[in-house]
């Protein structure tokens, strides 16, 4: 009888643990989903750039992209030589 009671108790404890685990996981998933929704909302809000894409703006943004790609290549090269 007492053994059964102990098993039942263990079961209760295990169940409580798993419920807590699920609720913890659920909370994290909910939080991630909420952040994702927030980011999507921001992306939607600013989806149409307000600045007119004049040639000057287009050239500047292209130059920026090239500059950043070059920087990344240099850093990757440095990392590669360090590791090697």
């Amino acid at each position: 009888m007492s053994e059964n009671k102990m098993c039942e108790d263990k079961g209760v404890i295990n169940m409580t643990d798993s419920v807590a685990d699920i609720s913890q996981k659920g909370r994290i998933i909910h939080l991630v989903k909420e952040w994702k929704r927030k980011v999507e909302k921001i992306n939607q809000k600013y989806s149409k750039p307000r600045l007119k894409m004049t040639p000057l703006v287009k050239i500047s943004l292209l130059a920026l992209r090239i500059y950043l790609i070059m920087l990344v290549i240099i850093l990757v090269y440095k990392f590669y030589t360090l590791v090697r």
Partner: protein
Amino acid sequence: MESASYYYKYRRFIKWLRLYLALAGPGIIVMVADNDAGGITTYAATGAKFGFHFLWFILLLGPVAYVVQEMTVRLGAVTKRGHAEAIFDAFGPFWGWFSLIDLGIVDFLTLVTEFIGMTAALKIFGVPPVVTVIGVAILMSAIVMQGRYWTWEKIVLVFCALNLIYIPAALIIHPDVSAITKGLIPGFPTGLTNDVFFFLMANIGTTIAPWMLFFQQSSVVDKGMTEKDILFGKLDTASGALFTVIVAAFCIILTATLLYKPGGADIESAAAAASAIMVHNPFVGSALAIGLFDAGLLGAICISLASSWAMGEVFGWAHSINNKPSEAPMFYVFYFLSLIGAGIIVLLPGSPLVLITLFVQVIAVTLLPAALVFLILLLNNEELMGKYKNTLVQNIFGFSIVLMIIILSTLYALSVVFPELFK
């Protein structure tokens, strides 16, 4: 009749002065905070290495900083938006997220370097790093949590005034006035060697940092400045630029007088310079250490706020210092998390602090050109800026300075990654 006219002129001047004093703040704070722990180390090292030779160069950096920061004043006052939100709005989510994430990383790493400076400075007086970190965290929380922008600004201005400690410290050691005068004349007495080039790049690198653009624009918006306040904002920024170059020049005069020797002396950091000076002149050594702590504190205050404002603008959280923590919880949570995170990294044994200090320069150079280019493009948009858009003269200065900063700061970052490049 004439005395009445003088009286009215006097009354008008007093009224104008009062208005200026009420509106002054963001420009002075951002410029003085620009002389952060890293900045003070650069100036101290420049003085020890080259004596008074490059005082003229430091004075030139004032107008450079003014031209860039003045644009953020106009942009903030006209659009009523911080720089992060302005980038999202004008250039779309790709550049918006790039700037925001990059700003978050750069600011966090810079915050770590400010804590490194502050703990090193107070260690000279025997204060353990853990006490410094906890004390700074409590102080910064108390300053920001009182719920009024005006009070916050005035407290921070007191810390800015403490930065002037380098002036009496330099004056009491009786620096060589004729050598200082020679140092004010542009030239390269030792030739334009790789060492000279490296130090000039480092000084340029400390003049404009990405967080400064975001901080001043958000600060102008939080203060509620409008188009009619732009003139005062410009004056405020000009005063700040003057203030910052004076402090930098006196910091150089101090180490040039006490540490410079023919051939140049190499110092690792401002804290090392303060310790070296402390042996010969405890007052001046203490002044340098106190100044370094103050510089780190001002940097930490502004950098953590720049990130929190930017996050608040984009995510739509309440994000004003005028809000109490209960009214803007996410803004303050982000502020405290970055503060506590940076403090913990400094205290963790075995943290790669030297690597972080070097890495900051490299990461900053991925954001600075983008933020500067966005600034210039926004300031040239008539639909956005109306009559406050850049004039031809402003564009000539703006473009030249932005181009120079981009080239020199990129070269500086490359010299950090490849130290043999300029040796």
